[in-house]
């Protein structure tokens, strides 16, 4: 299983902040998973239709969307950060 966690407007569009999915093959990229999530339609389509607006972290480390998911336990998807 892979935990997906969402923040900010991604979380709001999806309607929840966490879910668990079947683990994809290790070489599946975050970008490919985002496309699969968008295909669910509804709030998911809204949240994931434009990957250029999204950023990701694997096991709490920022990574590019083209990174393979590998053996990570947690994938976070969110808009660019706006702290400080």
């Amino acid at each position, binding site marked *: 299983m892979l935990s997906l966690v969402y923040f900010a407007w991604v979380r709001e569009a999806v309607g929840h902040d966490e879910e668990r999915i079947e683990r994809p093959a290790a070489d599946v990229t975050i970008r490919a998973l985002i496309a699969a999530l968008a295909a669910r339609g509804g709030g998911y389509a809204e949240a994931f239709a434009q990957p250029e607006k999204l950023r990701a972290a694997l096991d709490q480390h920022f990574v590019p969307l083209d990174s393979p998911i590998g053996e990570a336990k947690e994938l976070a998807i969110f808009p660019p950060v*706006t702290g*400080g």
Partner: protein
Amino acid sequence: MSRVSIQAGDFDPAAELAALEASGGGGVASFTGIVRGDGGLIALELEHYPAMTTAQVERIVAEASERWPLLGVRVIHRFGRLEPGERIVFVGTASRHRTAALEACAFLMDWLKSQAPFWKKEYFADRTQWVEARAEDDAKADSWKR
């Protein structure tokens, strides 16, 4: 000596400065960020990624400590609901030399803006909106890349 706090509550910049002054350096630099009430803003809601935030900010502090000879670093970042005039963030640095303290303070703020997992939502009387990351902030953070 470096310390990172990610917290909902307010903090006291004076107490933080006093601790940094006691670290033995010749200079203490600080930055305090405060919520502006622009455009009728009622409040900001700061969301963060609890499992990641502290570790990520500590990585940013470690990067600063590697680049500059710092005797003390203090970072405090709040989350939750904040109203105009409230403090959001504090960065304080102590070093033997002013340039190291001031540059590290600017570096930490630039990296917190673009490398720490926080998101701001603005509340107005008639609407809410998520703050968008500014290309300018990314450029500032990139300017420190080496």
